[in-house]
């Protein structure tokens, strides 16, 4: 098994074994969706209209959950030092951890979306649109979150620091994700926002690991 494949398997194993595993993110997602009607009322027509937005916000918040432990856990037991001493480039190591996080947190959110769409009275076409945009956008959320996770390792303070750092950076992904979903529902103009969403994801796949790698090198000193 190659070095990065071993890291991927290890991180996925840990994600499943520790705490509630992948289902914690999905549970949080479900709670956010459940809370919304309590605040805005059970009007099914209104819920259907803002459904894509609620699903996107829920997925965004749930994605950030496991991120603060991404590097902190390794830093606390001394594994992070050793991860930096492998032969693989640090950026690829970081990208591998991001992939493990997306598979165990982001992907389950995408899979849970149809069920949650039912709660919000969304039509199948709308659900499909949201699933597709989340599939394209959640990797971006993970990679952007990577930067905050790496920075907060250095700073050694937990709590809301990571979300505060990361959420503003995710605004473009949110904008184009919801815009693409709504465009698919109304039936016009899906292509443009979706392409931009994909471009944002591809860009973050490069920028995220680069920035996170630099932050980690600072962080272990």
């Amino acid at each position: 098994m190659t070095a990065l494949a071993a890291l991927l398997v290890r991180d996925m194993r840990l994600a499943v074994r520790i705490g509630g595993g992948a289902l914690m993110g999905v549970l949080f997602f479900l709670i956010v969706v459940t809370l919304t009607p309590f605040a805005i009322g059970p009007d099914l027509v209104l819920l259907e209209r803002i459904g894509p937005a609620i699903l996107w916000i829920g997925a965004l918040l749930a994605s950030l959950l496991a991120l603060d432990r991404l590097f902190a856990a390794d830093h606390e037991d001394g594994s992070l030092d050793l991860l930096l001493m492998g032969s693989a480039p640090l950026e690829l190591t970081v990208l591998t951890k991001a992939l493990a996080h997306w598979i165990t947190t982001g992907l389950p959110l995408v899979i849970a979306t149809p069920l949650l769409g039912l709660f919000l009275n969304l039509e199948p076409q709308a659900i499909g649109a949201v699933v597709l945009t989340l599939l394209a956008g959640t990797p971006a959320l993970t990679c952007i979150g990577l930067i905050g996770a790496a920075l907060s390792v250095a700073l050694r303070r937990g709590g809301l620091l990571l979300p505060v750092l990361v959420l503003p950076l995710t605004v473009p992904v949110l904008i184009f994700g919801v815009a693409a979903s709504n465009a698919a529902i109304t039936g016009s103009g899906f292509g443009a926002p979706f392409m931009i969403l994909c471009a944002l994801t591809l860009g973050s796949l490069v920028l995220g690991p680069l920035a996170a790698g630099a932050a980690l090198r600072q962080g272990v000193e």
Partner: protein
Amino acid sequence: MALIDLANPTRFLALVARALPWLAAATALAFACGLYLSWFTAPDDYQQGATVKIMFVHVPNAWLAMGVWTVMSIASIGTLVWRHPLADVAAKAAAPLGAAFTFLALFTGALWGRPMWGTYWVWDARLTSVLVLFLMYLGIIALWRTVDDPSRAGRAAAILTLVGAVNLPIIKFSVDWWNTLHQPASVIRLGGPAIHPAILTPLLTMALAFGLLFVTLHLAAMRNEILRRRVRAMGLMQAHAAQGA
């Protein structure tokens, strides 16, 4: 055999081994009777047709959803106040079962409502309360899985269960009040028409069947948990013994 003997895990395992086959048989018998009565002797509803018979599954599950939380609450008091050795085992074993019954209640509720509402889900007071209960079950299960040491997990879960028990009436009241604020377009009550004797017998039989199912599964789950803890203890002893080597 005195009740105090149940506190001894080994005696408890012996009791469960003897009782389980009988309980399983009783459960199967109760389901056979209940399903027969539900299907053949209960009348169709004039408005909903045969789909009203889903209530024979939905209502017992909803009762059990609440009932299992009560069982967990009693077990939690056992953990915190009486320090009964099997109390946290009982609580831990009950949580997934309660979550399953709650999920079935939601699922059958959605199926029941679909022909009437046109959607699988409406945010009506009763369904929403059950959904919140489901979330609380999942939270308890998550807490059990997060803390490694079984006895610490037991105390934490006991506190959360009792807090939940106090909160559930408050949540129910709030959700009812919230529902009256926003009058939905059509008011369909899942309770159906007034309880008719022909409906009562199948309903109670199915409730008994599901109750027996819970008891059977719960005892089996408790047995599994005790065995799991024994495996863990043996592993710890093996690690400790290897230090001398």
